[in-house]
C-alpha cells in the first residue's frame, strides 16, 4: 500500500517535471508550429542562471526564488534573439527550422562548456527543500513538492494569460487563423515574438527547477527535449490542457511501468503506448477545431 502511494507520488512528480519542460514547447511548437530543438538549451540557460544567482546571493533559498523570474528573462531573451535572427526567416520550412535550431543547440552547449567548464556545477538546494515532507501515508521529497507547485502555478499563470488578457486573445487569434488575425489589424510579427518570449521563458523556469533534481551541466537540456516533444504531440498540438493531461499521464505510466519492470523497459513501453495512441488519435488528446484550409 505504501509502495503504491510512493509510486503515485513519483508518477505525479515525474509528470510535473515533464509538464514544466513541455509547457514552453506547447506554446512555441504547439501554438506557433516551430520545431525548436534549442528549447532544451533554454532550460540549460535557466539552470545556469540559478547557478550564477547562487554565486551572487549566498542564501540558497533567496537565490533560488530570485532565479525563477531571472531564468524566465534569460530563457525568454535567448528565445527572442533566436526568433528574430533565424526562426523568423523559416516559418514555412519546418525541416529547415529543425536542423538550424539543432545546430544552435549544439553551439549553445559548447558555449556553456566554454563559459562554465565541462564538469557539472553545483546548485545547492535551500535547507527547506532538502529532506522530505510527511503526507500521512508516505514521504514526499520537498524538492519534488516544490516542482509540482511550480508546474501548477506555471500552468495556471499561462492559462490566465491566454484566456484573460488582450495579449492572450491575440496569441489565440493568430494561432487559430493567422490570415484573419492579420486582416483585423493584429500585428502577427510582434505576437509571434511575444509568444516565443513566453515559451522560451517557461523553459528557463523549468531549468531553474530541474537543478533541484538533477545535474546542472551543458547537456541538461538534451535529457528532456525528446520527452517534452512527446508530451506536446501526445497532448494535442495547440492546447495547453492537452499538455497537462499528457504530462501527468506519461509520468504516471512511466512510474507504473518502471515499478513493475525496469527503467529502460518502462521508457520503451511509454513510447509504444504513445505511438499506438497516436495511431488511434493522430491529433493527440485535444486538437484545435478550425475552419482554416491549411
Amino acid at each position: 500500500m505504501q509502495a503504491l502511494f510512493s509510486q503515485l507520488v513519483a508518477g505525479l512528480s515525474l509528470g510535473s517535471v515533464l509538464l514544466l519542460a513541455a509547457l514552453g514547447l506547447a506554446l512555441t511548437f504547439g501554438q506557433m508550429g516551430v520545431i525548436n530543438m534549442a528549447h532544451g538549451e533554454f532550460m540549460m540557460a535557466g539552470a545556469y542562471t540559478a547557478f550564477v544567482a547562487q554565486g551572487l546571493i549566498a542564501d540558497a533559498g533567496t537565490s533560488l526564488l530570485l532565479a525563477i523570474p531571472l531564468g524566465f528573462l534569460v530563457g525568454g531573451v535567448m528565445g527572442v534573439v533566436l526568433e528574430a535572427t533565424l526562426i523568423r526567416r523559416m516559418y514555412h520550412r519546418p525541416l529547415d527550422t529543425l536542423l538550424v535550431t539543432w545546430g544552435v543547440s549544439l553551439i549553445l552547449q559548447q558555449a556553456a562548456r566554454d563559459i562554465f567548464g565541462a564538469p557539472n556545477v553545483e546548485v545547492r538546494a535551500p535547507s527547506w527543500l532538502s529532506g522530505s515532507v510527511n503526507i500521512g501515508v508516505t514521504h514526499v521529497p520537498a524538492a519534488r513538492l516544490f516542482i509540482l507547485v511550480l508546474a501548477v502555478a506555471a500552468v495556471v499563470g499561462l492559462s490566465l494569460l491566454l484566456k484573460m488578457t488582450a495579449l492572450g486573445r491575440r496569441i489565440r487569434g493568430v494561432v487559430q487563423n493567422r490570415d484573419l488575425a492579420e486582416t483585423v489589424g493584429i500585428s502577427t510579427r510582434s505576437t509571434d515574438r511575444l509568444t516565443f518570449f513566453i515559451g522560451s521563458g517557461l523553459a528557463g523556469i523549468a531549468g531553474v527547477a530541474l537543478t533541484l533534481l538533477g545535474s546542472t551541466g551543458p547537456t541538461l537540456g538534451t535529457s528532456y527535449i525528446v520527452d517534452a516533444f512527446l508530451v506536446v504531440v501526445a497532448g494535442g498540438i495547440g492546447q495547453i490542457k492537452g499538455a497537462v493531461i499528457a504530462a501527468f499521464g506519461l509520468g504516471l505510466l512511466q512510474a507504473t511501468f518502471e515499478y513493475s519492470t525496469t527503467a529502460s523497459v518502462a521508457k520503451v513501453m511509454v513510447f509504444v503506448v504513445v505511438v499506438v495512441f497516436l495511431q488511434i488519435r493522430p491529433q493527440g488528446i485535444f486538437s484545435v477545431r478550425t475552419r482554416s484550409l491549411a
Partner: protein
Amino acid sequence: MSVLPTRGRAVRALAALVVAGLTLAGCGSRVGDSGASGSPANSCVDTSGSTVKVGFLNSLSGTMAISEKTVRDSLALAAEQINASGGVLGKKLQVVSEDGASEPTIFAEKATKLISSDCVAAVFGGWTSSSRKAMLPVFEGANSLLFYPVQYEGLEASPNIFYTGATTNQQIVPALDYLKQKGVKSLFLVGSDYVFPRTANKEIKAYAKANGIEVKGEEYAPLGYTDFATIVNKVKSAGAGAVFNTLNGDSNVAFFKEYRNAGLTPTAMPVVSVSIAEEEINGIGLDNVLGQLTAWNYYQTIDSPKNAAFVQAFKAKYGQSRVTSDPMEAAYTSLFLWKAIVEKAKSFKTADVRAAAGGVSYDAPEGTVTVNGENHHIAKTALIGKVGADSLIHTEWSSGAPVEPDPFLKNYDWAKGLTG
C-alpha cells in the same frame, strides 16, 4: 498557406526527428566499419628526427567531455614534464591531439588517422568501454599501441592495449571484500544500462552468491536518466545493507539528490560508487554524497611526496580550484610508463615495446605500479575511500600492497563460468 499547426505538421516533425536520428546512426556505423577493417600496414612511425609523435585521443565535445577533458589535462601535464626533462630516448614528444567527440565510431576513425596519417608511436586515451572496444580492432589491425587510463569491467586483454586503470579484481572485488568485512549481509545493485554495469553486476552477483551475501535487487537506468524516484523507492523498500552503484555520468547527480531527499543516509545504507571521483563531487553537491564510499586506486589525498608533486604541478598549471582524480592519475602514469618501457626496450617499435613491457615499474602518485607482461594491465593498490567535508575523498581502507591484475578473474573460484 497558414502556419497553423496541423496534424500533417506534427507527423512531419516527428518523421524528421526519426530520420535525423537514423541518418546519424547510419553514418556512424559506416565510419566504424571502415575503421575497423584497416589492413595491417607497415608502421610509418618516424624516429629519425629529434622528436617523436604521440597521439592524445579524448572526447573534448559531447556527453563524455566532462570527464575526458580532465584526462586530457593530465596527459598534457605529463607530456610537458617529460619534455622538460629531456624527452623519451632523447626525443621530445610532439603531441597530436584529436577529439573523440563521445562517439565510439569517431574514436575508431581518429585512431586510424593518428596511426596511419600522423604516424604516432602510441595513442593515449579513450574512456568508455564502447570507445575502447571500437578502437581495439584498429590498433590490432595496424599493430599499434593504445594506453587506456580508465577502470573498466575486465574480461579483455589485447596485445595492443595497455590498461592503466583498474580491472575488476583491483576495484570491485576489493570493494566487496571491504563490505563483507564490515558485516554487510545484503546488497542492492544500481547501474546505468550498458556494458560496464551489467558485466560488473554479473561478477558482483557471483561473488555475493559465493560469500552468502543476498542481492536484494538490481536496477538499471538508461544512460543520462534523470528521474530516480522509482528506483530509490525500490531501494528504500528493499532495505539492503548497502548499495553498489555503477551509474555513470550525470545520472549520479539525480540519483544522489533523490537518495538524500528520500531520507536515506550513508550510515543506514552506504552507497559504494565506482564512477564517482573528486571531479564529480562538486557537480553532485557535497551535501548529497558526504560520507558515501568510493572504490578507486588513487585519491588526491594520498600522502606521498610523489603525489604532492603531481597535485602541486597540476594545480600550478590549471588553477588552484582543480582537483586530481583516479583516471587523471592513471592517464598521467600511462605516459610515464610508456616512457619507461620504451627506454627499457630502447625502441619505439610496437613489438619491442611489447616484449620489454613485463615487469616495468613506475613510482606513480598512487604508489608503485608494475606492468604485467602477460595481460598488459598493471598491478595497483586498491583503496576504499569516504567523501569528506573538504570535498575530497579520504582513504578508509587499503589493500596494503599492489594487487596483481586478473582481468579474467582466473584466480577466483566464484568467477568460474563468467563471460563478458
